[in-house]
Each structure stands twice: as structure tokens, then as C-alpha cells.
């Protein structure tokens, strides 16, 4: 009886120690943070499009441009998402002016998901939904 009581106390102490020492989440590599960075990023127009204009534009503007024009935005987003979340581990859907595009694969299940709507310089809003496994 004493032995059982002693073991129960020790087991409770182990449980309390385990719960109070759970590893903390560090870093900020979640989809929400990713989308917030995309909203503030600025590139030269000629970096990701065929337009020979070195003006600085917001990333949201070139993403909006890419829904109806062939350019390197899709390649950029794929490189960025591959490096951020790993290949085949994300799906980004973006829509502007009623036209939508996707980058990545639909895994059917996402552990984290974030969406946002961002203003575009020429008018309208760009909507982005990013899910990651």
C-alpha cells in the first residue's frame, strides 16, 4: 500500500514536470507571417515581368498582374514556398479580377491556413489563401 502511494506521488510529479517543461514554439514561419511579408515586399517591375521598367512596385501588384499575363511570378512564388514550407507541402490560391491561380498541390488537409485580401495599386483587391501541411 505504501509502495503504491509512493509510486503514485512520483508519477504525479513526473506528469507535472513534463507538462511544465513542454518545448516552446520559436520562430515565425507560419502562413500568416508569409502572407504579411508578401503584402509589404517590393521588387522592380522588370524583376518578375517582361516589362522593361525598373520602377519599384509592391509584390501584390505583380502577383495581380500575373493572373492575366505570362511572367515569372509563378516561378518566384514556387521557389519561395518550396524553400519556406517544403515541396508538396502547401497550396497557395490567389485571385484577382475574377481570375484565380494556384501554386502547389492540394493535399486535402492543411495543418495551418491563412487568408488575406490586399489592395492592388491599379484598383481592386488581391485575395490570397495559403494552406500548409
Amino acid at each position, binding site marked *: 500500500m*505504501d*509502495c503504491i502511494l*509512493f*509510486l503514485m506521488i*512520483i508519477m504525479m*510529479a*513526473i506528469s507535472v*514536470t*513534463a507538462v511544465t*517543461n*513542454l*518545448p*516552446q514554439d*520559436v*520562430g*515565425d*514561419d507560419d502562413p500568416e*507571417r*508569409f502572407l504579411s*511579408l*508578401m503584402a*509589404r*515586399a*517590393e*521588387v*522592380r517591375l522588370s*524583376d518578375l515581368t517582361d516589362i522593361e521598367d*525598373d520602377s*519599384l512596385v509592391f*509584390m501584390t501588384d505583380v502577383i495581380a498582374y500575373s493572373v492575366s499575363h505570362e511572367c*515569372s511570378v509563378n*516561378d*518566384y512564388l514556387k*521557389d*519561395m514556398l*518550396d*524553400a*519556406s514550407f517544403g515541396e508538396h507541402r502547401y497550396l497557395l490560391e490567389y485571385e484577382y479580377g475574377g481570375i484565380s491561380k494556384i501554386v502547389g498541390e492540394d493535399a486535402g488537409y492543411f495543418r495551418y491556413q491563412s487568408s488575406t485580401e490586399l489592395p492592388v495599386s491599379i484598383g481592386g483587391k488581391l485575395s490570397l489563401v495559403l494552406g500548409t501541411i
Partner: protein
Amino acid sequence: MLSDSRGEMGFMEAMVSILTVTIVISMYLAFAATASATAYEPLSDFDPESLEFEITDSVQPILMTDLDTYIIDKDLRGLRITMAIPYFMEGTVVYQTGDEGGLEHQARYFMLLSAVGGRTLPTILEVEAFV
């Protein structure tokens, strides 16, 4: 515990009881020590935005922040920062100070980096701290 008719344990039973208690308490203390060592997170207050970079003619930036101060503050063996700017920069750039080895803590951060030509580029930082 086995006791005789007067309620007293024999020598062997008493020794076995003491040994059992000692072993269980030792295991608990070892567990508690391991748990507290692994729970220590040296990167919990690492702020990537506080890093300063010098903009160069290429996209590859030069880290100006002295990482030694951080590893001394946190009593670390070493610190390694791997930076990637996908599409705009080939591969990665590694900034390292101190030694590798020991217990390793990792964290990943997204940040915006001011780059050549006025660009502000999303950047991925992999930070490894060696304790």
C-alpha cells in the same frame, strides 16, 4: 511490505524497500534534469528584425550585427544563421560564430530584407544555436 506478527519488517525487506525508493527517486531526478535541459530555449527571444545588414551591389547582404554578443549573453557554444532569398539569390549565405556541437536548437524566421535597388525582399532565416 511484508511484516511479521508484531508489524516489523525483516532486514531484507527493509533493504529492498530502501533500494526501491532510492532507484525510483533517482530515475525521477534524472528525468527532471533532462526535462529542464531540453526545455531551455536559447532562441525564444531571438529577434531577426534586429539584425543589421549592409546592402551591397549584389543581392547578397553583409551581416553587420555582432553575433558574439548574443552567444555570450545566452551562454551559447555557437550560433549559425543560414539566409535564403529564393529566386533572387542562388543558394544560401551562412553567417556563423563560435563552435558547433552539443545540444542544437533550431528556429526558422521569415523577414523582409532591404536589398540592392530599393527592393524589399522576403527572406528566410534558419537559426541554429549550439548549447
